[in-house]
C-alpha cells in the first residue's frame, strides 16, 4: 500500500468511526465530541495562519468570540443561522486582514503583538459594552439551527450538526490547499528567495491565509454559541488563543489532519484522564514540550515515524535474498 493510499484509508476509517460513534455516547460524551469538532474547526483556521503561512497569531480566541457573539446577537433577534455564519466570517475575515496588513508591512514579526492587542480589546468590548453584549451576564437562549428541516436541538442532532460543519470546513480547506494558492504557500515555506523570483506575491498570499484563518475562527465561534446556547466573555480570553495555538503545534502544524489530533489531545483526552485531576495539565504541558523538542512535526509526524519503523522490517523481510 502506498503512503497516499494508506493516508486515504486512515482518513476514511476515521470519518466512518465519527459517523458511528455518536450513537454509543451519553449526552456528556456527545457534548465533548461537539466541543472537539468546534475546537478542530478553530484550529484548522489557525493552522492556515500558523502552519501554512508561518505567522503566529495570539488572537484566534478573539475571532472565535466575535463569531460566538455575532451568532448570539443575530439568532436571538430572529436572523437565520446561516446569516450568522456569513456575517461572522466576513467580520473576522476583515479584522484578520486589518490586523495582518500592517503586521506584514514590516520585517519584524509584529502579528503576535497586534493579535494580542486585538484579543484584549475584543475581550473588553464583550465585558463592558453591556448595551450590546450583555456584559458579564452575556446572552442567553441562543437557539440551535435546523438543517434540511431537521432540528438539531437535542445533543445527538447537534453533535451530528457539528460533525457536518467540520466535514464541510475540512473539505473546503483541503480544496484550498490544493489550489495554486496553496501551492504558492508551500513554495513560499520551502524557499522564499525562489518564490519571490517566480513572481509569488508573498505578502498578499500570507495575508489571505491570515484572513481566512480568522474567518474560520468566526465560523467556529458560531458553532460554539449554539453548542452552549449561551455566551459570556470568560472563555474568549488569551487562554483560548494559546490553547488553540498549542493544538496546532501538538497535532502537527502545516498538516491538514494535525488540528484533528491536536484538538483531540486538548479536548477529549482530559475527559478520559479525570482521575489525574489537575496533574493532567502538568502532564499535557510536559508532553507538549517533549514533543516540540524531539518531534517538531507533532503527533502526525510521530505517527508517521512509527508507521515507517513498522513498515521497514516487513519490507526487508519481503525482499528477495
Amino acid at each position: 500500500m502506498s503512503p497516499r493510499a494508506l493516508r486515504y484509508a486512515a482518513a476514511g476509517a476515521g470519518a466512518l468511526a465519527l459517523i458511528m460513534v455518536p450513537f454509543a455516547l451519553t449526552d456528556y460524551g456527545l457534548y465533548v465530541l461537539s466541543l472537539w469538532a468546534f475546537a478542530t474547526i478553530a484550529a484548522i483556521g489557525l493552522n492556515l495562519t500558523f502552519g501554512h503561512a508561518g505567522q503566529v497569531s495570539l488572537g484566534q480566541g478573539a475571532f472565535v468570540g466575535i463569531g460566538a457573539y455575532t451568532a448570539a446577537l443575530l439568532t436571538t433577534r430572529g436572523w437565520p443561522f446561516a446569516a450568522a455564519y456569513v456575517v461572522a466570517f466576513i467580520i473576522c475575515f476583515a479584522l484578520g486582514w486589518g490586523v495582518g496588513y500592517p503586521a506584514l508591512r514590516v520585517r519584524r514579526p509584529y502579528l503576535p503583538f497586534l493579535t494580542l492587542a486585538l484579543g484584549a480589546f475584543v475581550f473588553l468590548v464583550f465585558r463592558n459594552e453591556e448595551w450590546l453584549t450583555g456584559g458579564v451576564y452575556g446572552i442567553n437562549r441562543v437557539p440551535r439551527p435546523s438543517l434540511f428541516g431537521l432540528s438539531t436541538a437535542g445533543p445527538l442532532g447537534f453533535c451530528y450538526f457539528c460533525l457536518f460543519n467540520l466535514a464541510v470546513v475540512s473539505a473546503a480547506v483541503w480544496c484550498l490547499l490544493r489550489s495554486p494558492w496553496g501551492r504558492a504557500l508551500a513554495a513560499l515555506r520551502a524557499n522564499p528567495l525562489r518564490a519571490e523570483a517566480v513572481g509569488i506575491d508573498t505578502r498578499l498570499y500570507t495575508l489571505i491565509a491570515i484572513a481566512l484563518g480568522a474567518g474560520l475562527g468566526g465560523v467556529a465561534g458560531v458553532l460554539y454559541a449554539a453548542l452552549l446556547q449561551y455566551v459570556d466573555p470568560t472563555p474568549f480570553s488569551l487562554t483560548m488563543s494559546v490553547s488553540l495555538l498549542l493544538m496546532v503545534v501538538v497535532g502537527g502544524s502545516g498538516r491538514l489532519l494535525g488540528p484533528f489530533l491536536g484538538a483531540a489531545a486538548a479536548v477529549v483526552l482530559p475527559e478520559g484522564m479525570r482521575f489525574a485531576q489537575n496533574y493532567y495539565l502538568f502532564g499535557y504541558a510536559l508532553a507538549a514540550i517533549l514533543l516540540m523538542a524531539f518531534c517538531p512535526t507533532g503527533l502526525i509526524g510521530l505517527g508517521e515515524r512509527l508507521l515507517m519503523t513498522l513498515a521497514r522490517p516487513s519490507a526487508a523481510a519481503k525482499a528477495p535474498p
Partner: protein
Amino acid sequence: MNALLSVHDLTKRFGGTPAVDGVSFALEPGEILGVVGPSGSGKSALVDCVFGQLAPSSGEVRLDGRPITGLPARELSRLGLARTFQRVQVFSQLTVRDNLIAAGQEHRGSLWSRLVGPADAGLAGTAAEMMAFFRLDDLADQVAGTVTDGQQKLLDTAMAFMARPRLVLLEEPAAGLDEAALGALRERLRAINAQAGATFMIVDRDLHFVTSLATRLLVLGKGRVVAEGDVDTLRNSGVIEAEST
C-alpha cells in the same frame, strides 16, 4: 536602438566599497550574453541588482526602454525576467511537477482563479513538455529534495522557462554538472534560444561553457567592465584568459 535590456552606470555599494562600479551594457533580443570575471569581480552583485534581489545604489536599468530600476523580483518576474541562482533553489518539499507549476502559475489567470481555479493552473501540459525537454519525465511525482543534485540543477533551470520569459539569467548553470549533463544542457539552451528567441545572460566561472554558448561577452574586474565584445575578438586579444583564470 531597440535594446531589450539596458543598464546604465549601475553602482552598488556595501558600506563604502563599491561591489559594482558604474557598469553599463545593453542586450539585444535573442542575444546570449556571457558575464565572466574572477570571483569578487561583482558578477553576482550586478545580476542581483538587475533582477531585483538587491537595490542598486545608483544607476538605471531599463526593459524595452521603460525604467525598472529597483523593482522587486516579483514584479520583474511578471515583466518577463526569469533567473536561476548560483546555488540550486528548488522548492525541495514539493514534487518536481509542482515545482514547475509553481514557477509558472503566477503569470496566468486572476487571483480568484488561483484560489478556486483548477489545481494545475492549466499548466500540467506545459510542465510535462518541460520535463520531457529536460529529461525529467520519470521524476514528475518525486519530491524535488530527494532527486540527485544534477537532476535538481536541471529542474532549477527548467523552472526558469515555465513562464515563457523574455530574458533569462542563468547563474552558474554548469556548476556541479558532469560532462554528459553539460552537453545535454548546452544543447537544450541552444534549442530554446533558437525556437523561442529567448534572450539569455549566462554567468559562470566555467569559461569553456560560457564561450561555447555566448554570442557576446561582458568581462568584469573589480566591479567595472574590463572588456566587452564577441568571443573571438576577446580571445584573440587575450583578455578573457588573463581576466578569468
